[in-house]
């Protein structure tokens, strides 16, 4: 029997597959992340900050801030990592709740599994939201137990959850939020906890501690947690040690709130860092160092549509259907066995085949995966159009070559100082085609709070080959005058973005946000959102205020310059054209808006808005020809496809907006 290929595809899905090459099978572990959020529930964790008049002041108890974080993280992960798991475990509660599948014969008093470790379900999000938003609901559950929980027990509870729910996830992490820096009652309890923490380490689970310092007491890791937490991750011992997060201060009213700082600290750990590749960087013959590549920038897309089982004849619960595939003969008569599949190229009406070992050689004749420096050039020799895809971030690794970090650092600093780049021959994987890339140094960027926004390292920017470069389109260029340029310069200078940089964090993706907003409200059976605050829409009022005058001035100059040029054309042909042009663009004082859009209008140009509004009043839009409707819609940049009814409706809708 031919085997379904679903499993295989799932393994390779995180690969950045540029070409149609087969991705390397990266061992057996699924490249997925499972996070169990463990939140301490105790008297001090439930204590609210003293009331304050300051708007920015904290209103959340540490526990409720942690729950809010978890709520936010859960929604965020559904968008950004739709296949990753998350669970929420409260500890120290009076109540105990634990799934029997996980528990075996064990019992875990005062551990309350709020959401089992799994890909979140809409009901998990709802439950969490009710805890966050409904104080009564929260008060019912968030009752601290009298005797508290033993840490060893909690850690073993986490152990069991990870073992059963996410047995072969390559990244498994326990997020621990607590303000108790010494939860062990005695040496024995501490030793037990240390042992259980070691179990987690051996299991491949990382403990990420998010300590909250109690007012006036602080949080001393050395008392307890330094014996439990390991610096390197067991699955990726080579990953540079994460920067230890600063202890949160729960103070009232001064600046950044507990919630905000907890969110930012958790966000920085939200996605486990995964290397895309580990490669030698060859500086010259016989000089290689080790580097790892990371995908820091990548377009986040909405989930693709999928198949849903509607509940069958008995009206059961709707379910996501898993799609498996099987190769069949094209007449669907029978399944094809894998050994009978062969790759062939079309050539001259026939299929040209190669034995499998030759298929490999076609691609692999360029040598092993490597980043090899060919030489150096000033960054100015990298034209702005020379881009093909998203760059990859690289950072040194000592795993294969000791001394990589210092050599990499020297290279990065030298290139930064002299504004140079390296040109490299780059083969990312065994089957990948070679690419020529620019290796450009990147500096560390810090945010307002001194936190890292962009890491220091180097960026691999794949360059186009001559095959990838298109010619400029043919144009008949009409050149500007110095005066006109000067007027436009005023405009440009007035409208700089804040801090004179493009800061991606200011611009959430409106399409993606809207998609998930709708999907979420459908999933949670909420009311549909009305509108989305789209931060990518330019600030029109400000543009008018700051640059309006200059644009108007430029517009007038443009009109007269254009008129002058038209006048200067003396022959009859030019005159003829002039009248046509005039008609098309229309003299528009103060306003350079041309009424012409998508369809090139000839003598029969599109109707004006005013005219169309009159038609609408008399209900005559319906009587217009398709051609006329299309022209009008086209000139407004609207869709011109569809039946007449659609076009009429579109015109009417548009007219309502003006």
């Amino acid at each position: 029997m031919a085997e379904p290929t679903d499993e295989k595809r799932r393994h390779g899905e995180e690969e950045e597959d540029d070409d149609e090459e087969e991705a390397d099978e990266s061992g057996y572990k699924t490249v997925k992340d499972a996070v169990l959020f463990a939140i301490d529930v105790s008297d001090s964790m439930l204590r609210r900050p003293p009331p304050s008049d300051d708007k920015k002041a904290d209103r959340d108890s540490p526990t409720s801030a942690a729950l809010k974080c978890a709520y936010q993280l859960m929604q965020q992960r559904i968008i950004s990592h739709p296949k990753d798991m998350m669970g929420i475990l409260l500890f120290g509660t009076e109540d105990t709740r634990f799934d029997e599948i996980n528990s075996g014969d064990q019992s875990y008093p005062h551990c309350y599994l709020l959401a089992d470790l799994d890909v979140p379900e809409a009901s998990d999000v709802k439950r969490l939201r009710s805890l966050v938003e409904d104080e009564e609901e929260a008060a019912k559950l968030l009752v601290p137990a009298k005797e508290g929980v033993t840490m060893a027990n909690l850690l073993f509870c986490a152990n069991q959850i990870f073992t059963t729910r996410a047995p072969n996830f390559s990244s498994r992490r326990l997020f621990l939020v607590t303000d108790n820096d010494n939860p062990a009652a005695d040496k024995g309890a501490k030793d037990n906890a240390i042992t259980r923490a070691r179990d987690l380490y051996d299991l491949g689970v990382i403990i990420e501690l998010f300590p909250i310092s109690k007012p006036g007491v602080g949080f001393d890791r050395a008392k307890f947690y330094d014996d439990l937490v390991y610096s390197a991750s067991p699955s990726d011992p080579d990953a540079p040690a994460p920067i230890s997060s600063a202890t949160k201060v729960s103070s009232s009213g001064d600046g950044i709130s507990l919630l905000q700082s907890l969110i930012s600290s958790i966000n920085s750990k939200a996605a486990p860092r995964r290397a895309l590749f580990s490669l030698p960087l060859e500086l010259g013959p016989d000089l290689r160092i080790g580097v790892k590549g990371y995908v820091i920038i990548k377009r986040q897309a909405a989930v693709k549509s999928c198949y849903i089982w509607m509940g069958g004849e008995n009206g059961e619960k709707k379910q996501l259907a898993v799609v498996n595939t099987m190769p069949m003969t094209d007449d669907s008569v029978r399944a094809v066995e894998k050994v009978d599949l062969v790759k062939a190229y079309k050539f001259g009406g026939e299929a040209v085949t190669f034995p499998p070992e030759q298929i490999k050689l076609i691609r692999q004749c360029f040598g092993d995966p490597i980043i090899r420096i060919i030489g150096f050039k000033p960054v100015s020799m990298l034209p702005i159009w020379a881009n093909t895809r998203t760059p990859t971030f690289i950072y040194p690794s000592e795993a294969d070559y000791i001394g990589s970090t210092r050599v990499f650092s020297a290279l990065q600093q030298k290139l930064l100082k002299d504004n140079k780049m390296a040109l490299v021959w780059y083969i990312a994987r065994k089957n990948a085609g070679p690419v020529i890339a620019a290796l450009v140094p990147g500096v560390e960027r810090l945010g307002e709070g001194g936190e890292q926004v962009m890491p220091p390292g180097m960026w691999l920017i794949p360059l186009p080959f001559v095959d990838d470069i298109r010619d400029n389109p043919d144009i008949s260029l009409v050149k500007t005058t110095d005066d006109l340029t000067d007027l436009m310069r005023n405009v440009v200078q007035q409208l700089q973005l804040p801090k004179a940089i493009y800061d991606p964090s200011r611009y959430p993706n409106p399409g993606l946000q809207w998609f998930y907003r709708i999907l979420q409200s459908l999933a949670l059976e909420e009311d549909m959102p009305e509108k989305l605050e789209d931060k990518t829409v330019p600030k029109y009022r400000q543009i008018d205020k700051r640059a309006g005058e200059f644009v108007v001035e430029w517009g007038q100059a443009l009109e007269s310059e254009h008129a002058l040029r038209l006048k200067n054309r003396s022959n009859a042909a030019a005159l003829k054209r002039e009248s046509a042009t005039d008609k098309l663009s229309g003299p528009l004082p103060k306003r350079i808006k041309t009424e012409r859009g998508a369809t090139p209008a000839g003598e029969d140009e599109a109707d004006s808005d005013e005219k169309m509004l009159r038609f609408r009043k008399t209900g005559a839009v319906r009587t217009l020809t398709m051609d006329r409707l299309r022209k009008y819609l086209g000139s407004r940049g609207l869709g011109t496809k569809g039946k007449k009814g659609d076009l009429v409706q579109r015109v009417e809708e548009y007219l309502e907006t003006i």
Partner: protein
Amino acid sequence: MADKEATVYIVDVGRSMGKKHHGRDKTDLDWALQYFWDKVTSAVMTGRKTLNIGVIGLRTDGTNVSDAGVNDPEGYENITVLQTLKQTMLSDVRELQAKLVPSASDEGDAISAVVAAITMIANATRGKTGKPLQYKRKIVLITSSLGSMDPEDSDQLDAIVSKIKEDGIQLVLIGVDFDDTEFGFKEEDKSDEKAEIEEYLKKLTDDCGGVFATLAEAVEGIDTPETKKTRPVKSYQGTLTLGNPEKYDSAMTINVERYPRTSIARPITAKTWFIKRDPAAEDGTQSTHTVTEDPGDGSNEETLGGVKTQRFFQIEKEGETGAKIDVPQDQLESGYAYGRTAVHIAESDRVILELDTLPSLDIIGFIPEDKFERYLAMTKTNVIVAQKGNDKASLALSSFIHALYETASYAVARFAAKERKNPLILLLAPLIEPDFEGLIDFELPFAEDVRDYKFPPLDKKVTVADKSLTQHRDLPTPELMDAMSAYVDAMDLSTFGTDDDGNSAEYMPMDETYSPLVHRVHQIVRWRATNPTAEELPDPPPILTKYSTPPAELAEASKPQLEALMLAGDVKKVPPKQASRKRTREREKPLSGLNVDELLSAHPKRARVDPINPIPSFKQTLATTDNIDTFKTAVADLAKVVYSYITNSVGDARYGQALECIRVMREEMTELEEPALFNGFLHELKRKIFAGELGGNRRDMWMKVRMNRVGLIDQKLSPFSEVTEEAAREFWKPPPPPA
């Protein structure tokens, strides 16, 4: 649509072409055919129906010109039409290969062949009314002119020249060992006859405005890949605005169009087929097929059948984790996954997920050029120009481009290509060339697109106590910094190349780099078509690997700097074995440095594998001992856990846990250099599964073991293994059914 083409190749196959000259290792004909096949297979590869090729043999043994439309063969002796003008298929290639062999004749007139070619083209490119159709017409004459030929009198020659010109035919002359001063080739000891004919043909070519090249140059040119020109297609036409023209009179609007500027060329793709087996031969005797056994038949489509992918659907059985049931497609509808929750959205309702956008290119603001980080460029690039034929728009855009250029600024804009398309953010950069002005654009990341990965600084070391160190083994010493600086300067490419005039220029400019993979696949497929039985693949042409290493001259000159850098950097490769010698390796410690293993060994119960905590207890048991018996017990214990997981699993619910145990056991036994212990277990597991001893049919578990590649530890993985790679592969096969 590309133009229709009609090209006739005239190939000299005279007796003398079968000889080798000037110490070359191939005959003149083989040499000439190198050029010919390159051109022909390239044409075949395009698959274009309108790319017609005809072939005429010159100095053939017989005569046949009737296929060219020449009625009277008188004067066309020893000229044979080998292929009429048509789209060339692989079968034609094979036929031509058989025909293009040296003849026994040295007779045959090249000019007559050209006339035959003219006739052939004229007949084939005429419309029904007899009028010539729109065609690109071309004659390529490949000859060594070592035969006999009577130069025509000049009247006749003039008639031919004017006919060629009148028909708009391009004449290309490729001469074997023809003198070419431009290319720098001169044949010594050239016979007077050859010199005369050579001159005569060159003059003919020259007179009708044709192209001449000596064969050496033409063959050299083969390696320079042809790049495909793509017609520019607009990806947006609409307005570039600043401000809101609907609301403010002060808004700027310019009509623009947008075209691709870079676009990654992909290699041609292979399609998947299946090998048709002869049902009569399906008795086990014919196990492999012609494709591997006899590549000569590999290009025979009759043995291959098309493949399509059949989908089938499964859902989880309610209340039973791991149990799956098949469902028919008619019980399915489209929708989306919100986490684990299925959200049904009918296809017709999908619009509610879309933002209500109108097409626009709307400027958000400006940033200084030097504050822009180049790594934010996410995509291929486009170029934006003014609407075609709109002079005012062109003037307006020109002033905008120059203003950006003069203020050294870029614009950031919100872009929606079409109605209801999700907006993107673009960077707009000015591009000014002598006769061209435009805006280059590419996409910038949104907030969601930047991952928050943190890395330590490279120029300082921050300690736990928040102290900043400037000296550390991870930080370069001043010596290393100097050595690096000297090396980088020495390896400068900005002036290492030479331009056409011999002046120093940039080395490796982008327009001299060819996509290795695109042209490699192209090369090999064409090579296979003309060499169906060859075993060894040819190497990629040097032009594709030219930039895979630093230029030798520069590397040589920079050797002292490199050596100094190596000395200062003191990089050492980690020996590959060291990582796996676990017995001597120290176990990791928590942040405090506490020796947890000591603590563990104080707990005697930790010496056995705990079924509810199997993996950690297994690892810890192994860590406490060197005793092989303890290893054996631990492996046996963990094996029991695996069997119990499988036996008690509902569907595949516990397979994951079992797999993880198997993986850990395999990893640990590899590191402890005891592969036999693991391999013994795996044999037993396989036996139990196929014997049905683990709670019924668990063959799907075996499939998982196989898919996850946790097979026998072979000699490649561990030198201590007695299992060969071959045996490890064989092991995957199910056991033979009991006799």
